[in-house]
């Protein structure tokens, strides 16, 4: 009796364990491969694992002329500028949308999503053509603009949700007690929407750090970001360099999230979902 219960309990525990294991494999399998490549000195076809490990390629990546440092700084600055631009537009737009009547709001937000529904390649090719005429090709401004395109969609959607969740009577209470519209926005609305706006910033940042297609068409060869560097390395068959770049790519992402988390208390973060 006790044994049967135990067996049943064991089986009940086993299923989730297996599921978690499978998920972990799907997520971490490729990452493990990446790690192996990043530290492989020699890894030729029949060998299942690298035959020699070392930091040789790391040195090569970080040699001043290899461009990894430049690409890293480019990536981070472009991502920060993209966050700045997207949020500067998304905060007023999100607030206006959140305070709009429902049918009009739904319609505008849908329109806004429309460019995302098209395949991105033709859009970027067109933008590159347009930017060429404007002299924006190969400039930081051009790359930031092209990164802000998908960034804005995230930012406006999340900001709209964040502002929509702010109870209107709280704004009215401030107005009632003597605060003008701008003061009310600054003191009441913004602080309450803040977690949502931070979430939007994180999304925009990560999206920009990862962005390849737009940078490729608008930025190269003058501006190289980490994804571009990685692409060039992969195309050259240099998997070590590509893997190392991919790992470096993780650094700003994780760093940004850590910084944000340091500035946010846990109770603020927990309100993002609400």
């Amino acid at each position, binding site marked *: 009796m006790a044994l049967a219960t135990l067996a049943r309990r064991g089986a009940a525990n086993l299923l989730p364990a297996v599921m978690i294991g499978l998920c972990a494999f799907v997520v971490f399998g490729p990452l493990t491969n990446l790690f192996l490549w990043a530290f492989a000195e020699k890894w030729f076809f029949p060998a299942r694992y690298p035959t020699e490990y070392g930091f040789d390629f790391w040195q090569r990546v970080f040699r001043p002329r290899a461009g990894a440092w430049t690409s890293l700084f480019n990536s981070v600055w472009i991502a920060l500028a993209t966050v700045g631009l997207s949020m500067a537009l998304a905060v007023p737009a999100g607030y206006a949308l959140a305070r709009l009547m429902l049918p009009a709001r739904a319609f505008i937000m849908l329109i806004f999503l429309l460019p995302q529904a098209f395949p991105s390649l033709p859009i970027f090719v067109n933008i590159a053509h347009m930017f060429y005429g404007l002299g924006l090709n190969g400039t930081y401004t051009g790359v930031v603009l092209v990164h802000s395109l998908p960034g804005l969609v995230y930012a406006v959607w999340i900001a709209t949700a964040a502002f929509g969740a702010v109870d209107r*009577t709280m704004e*009215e209470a401030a107005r009632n*007690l003597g605060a003008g519209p701008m003061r009310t926005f600054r003191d009441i609305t913004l602080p*309450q929407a803040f977690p949502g706006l931070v979430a939007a910033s994180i999304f925009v940042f990560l999206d920009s750090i990862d962005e390849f297609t737009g940078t490729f068409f608008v930025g190269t060869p003058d501006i190289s970001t980490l994804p571009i560097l990685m692409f060039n390395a992969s195309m050259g068959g240099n998997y070590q360099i590509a893997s190392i770049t991919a790992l470096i790519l993780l650094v700003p992402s994780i760093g940004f999230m850590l910084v944000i988390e340091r500035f946010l208390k846990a109770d603020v973060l927990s309100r993002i979902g609400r």
Partner: protein
Amino acid sequence: MGVEALALHGLSIRLGGAQILHDVTLNVPAGSFTCLLGPSGCGKTTLLRSIAGFAPPASGDIRLGARSIADLPPEKRGTAMVFQSYALWPHMTVAGNLTYPLKLRGIVRAERDARAEALLDILGLSGFGARKVGSLSGGQRQRVALGRALIIDPPILLLDEPLSNLDAAIRRNLRGELRRLQQRLGITTIMVTHDQEEALAMADTIVLMRAGRVVQVAAPQDLYARPADLDAGRFLGVDNMLAGRPDDPVAAATLGFRSMDARIHATAPQDALVRHGTVLDCAYTGGGYHLQLQSGAEVISAVSGVPVTPGSQVCVAVPTASLMAFGADQMLLPNGSPPIAETVQ
């Protein structure tokens, strides 16, 4: 700022294409406690919001003291409103909520803190200043919301169902507390409620509303004894409305009375409305029994000190003084109604 009177002149409000308030005219004397009473959806909140500046009038005027405030934005009106949901700011502490209006008025930190401290004492919340508003009980939040409104020393206080989110026991306590505070400060107060008992217990003047119109403005005792029409009577607990008969002591199309004024008698008394009927139901209500009687086509609610067997024939009588006489147009008849003094409980 000093206490001021409020006057509404022919105020009409349209929201989303619908007319919510129709031609409301009302005078609220300085320092008085006025209740807006009416069923849910009759426009009480809208009226309060229009005074605070959140519902622009389609026509009419709002005057506070000598000046018209109808065209001012909310922050320039100086009305202090306590919202039904309290609308406390969750990202500020209790003291932060209380002192924000002072901060807006450029008062220095030391004085802000001192005034918050003093107010917390008055509200019975000493030591709560540093707490987050999320950690407060409903009653405590209500007090903070009230304190936040009072700290600016407003000429008028607007309360939207301030007690309806609270437990019945706390509500009774706070009723008295709120009333005493209002009397001590002498501040002109308009309170919205759908609870007639609350309005009767607290108000100097009750404004009875229905479907966006003011039906009656009266002192609680007057309103209770002399509701303006049949609907007002029903809303104020007049649960019996019988067709008048020629031999009744008061001539009227409809006679209204409350079941607690209708008693069972062995013999028909003098100077009273008398009906005979069959007992349908007899329920114990604590102090006595509540009866339902079938009298012809009408059902009468009455009370009795002793239980009565359902099915038995009884005589029910209502003293003339407790009767309300309504005309064929459903309006209260000017004569034949009881003098006020006799209906005071």
